[in-house]
């Protein structure tokens, strides 16, 4: 199971890649593995406001339906248009082609509250 060093993580198993004042968000390798085959993805519209800790989208697998939570507050700058038609990419490439949305961050201080790779790995070990 992969935990890329350069990403930040949430307790709810989202990853965050910081690119200036934009962040890219997806769900972690651990999350996709726990969910099983993803069959449906619902994303917000570009321009939507998201709030840290609040659900911004939905992933559905053959096992369960789960909310995906915004790691930080801000405005949705871009969404992965490919995902709704190819949800399996979340399973095959959770940290790459399976990215979900890009958020323009309204309060960069919120990024400080996220976990680094080592902390997230410990969090997963504990939850597992």
């Amino acid at each position, binding site marked *: 199971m992969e935990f890329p060093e350069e990403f930040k993580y949430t307790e709810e198993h989202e990853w965050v890649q910081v690119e200036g004042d934009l962040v890219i968000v997806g769900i972690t390798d651990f999350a996709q593995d726990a969910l099983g085959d993803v069959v*449906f993805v619902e994303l917000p519209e570009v321009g939507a406001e998201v709030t840290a800790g609040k659900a911004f989208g939905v992933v559905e697998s053959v*096992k*369960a339906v789960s909310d995906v939570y915004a790691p930080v507050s801000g405005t949705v700058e871009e969404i992965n248009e490919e995902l709704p038609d190819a949800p*399996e990419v979340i399973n095959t490439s959770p940290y790459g082609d399976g990215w979900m949305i890009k958020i323009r961050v309204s309060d960069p201080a919120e990024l400080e509250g996220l976990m680094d790779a080592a902390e997230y790995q410990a969090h997963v070990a504990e939850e597992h």
Partner: protein
Amino acid sequence: MIVGTSGLVLNEKLLFEHSDAGRKGYSLPALDVPATELPDGLCRQEIAGFPELSEVDVVRHFTRLSTWNYGVDSGFYPLGSCTMKYNPKVNELAARLPGLADVHPATPDHLAQGALEMMFRLQEALAEISGFGAVTLQPAAGAQGELTGMLVVRAWHEARGSKRRKVLIPDTAHGTNPATAALAGFDVVPIASEGVLTLAEVEAHMTDEVAALMVTNPNTLGLFETNIAAICEVVHARGGLVYCDGANLNALLGIARPGDMGIDVMHFNLHKTFATPHGGGGPGSGPVGVSAALAPFLPGPWVIQDGDRYRFAGSSESIGRMLAFHGNFGIMLRAYAYIRSMGAAGLKHATEMAVLNANYVRARLEGGYHLPYATRSLHEVVFSDRDLPNDCHTLDVAKRLIDYGYHPPTIYFPLVVKGSIMIEPTETESQETLDEFCDAMLAIAKEAEMNPDLLHAAPVRTRVRRLDETAAARQPRLRWEGVGEKG
């Protein structure tokens, strides 16, 4: 499977594959008026290729398919949270009494006194069983009952000038609850439980923006919410209401009453708790009970007793109808027959047996499967696949159970347990049945160790092998595409 060489194995083609042009199952009298062509616009081209069959083709097709079915009448059906109770046949007798089965829903009150009396008595029986002030029988099933209950909550707040928008829902509540709250116009606030909901967690979230707490008691782990009375007090003290999902009421019947715990609103699932047919055999029925303060907001009309007569009545504060006519009357009849044939002592005994059966299964399987919550359960018990070796998971256990001749239990729910296996053995199951099932479960755990391929390949003793659920969900094919071809 080779049909005709291994005994009487009735395999079955699709109706489309049985079809032959010109075959039909009807004959019309000779035409005695001038023939006219149908205008083009009235002919649906998209059903070209519709199967053409004789009557006997159709009868055999569906009769054969019906023998493939698995139901509570053919075997043990431990589907947790769904309460697949045996449906006593005396209920069917009551539902078929001509004076009740044939009554038209628009019959005037004074000509339908027997039907109204039965509805009144069922309202009273459900109110007494649950400790509520009033009951509506109208909702068509559990989900509509939930919506009715939450619309009553909203109407109660609005009548007091309160604009509360939030609803607290613990992670052990029924999966439908957040959808219900959202549909009724509320914002859902998920809260955490520790097996059971703690008073501290409710206190931390119970603000003056919260309209209601929605709980399921006993919850989806099969655990009784031991803090429920204190939780209700806190919610009430801060101006909110408590909704209880009544799906698990069969664990409380005759022992404890939700109304006495401080619950304000609860829906019943007659098809779970009161032994009426379930799912496709339904329809369901989802009556709602409320405290006296909420009674005027119920959907009307309801039945009242007026001297020695019965009639429909309503209230100006009612949220209005949830359904045309009076609800699923035939199901009410079955539930009423069940309540009367069981009696108070019988209902209590059924509860005790349901709880005993769940704890028997728990005791027998503990050790074979990981038990995430060690607290003694009520009517259902949740295991997990944590300790299974060789990449064997909950899904594999469920599929392998089919090979052993059982309908699998509920899997991957509740979500608070990873890889959950939720078993609910209802009260009518004998110890022999439970032992056979537990033997099968333990044998599967042993197979996971010694011969995991058996689990990964399962089911192998079925007409079709393991289905590709992922492909079915990602690329659903919902229409017959072989039009014009013979299979």
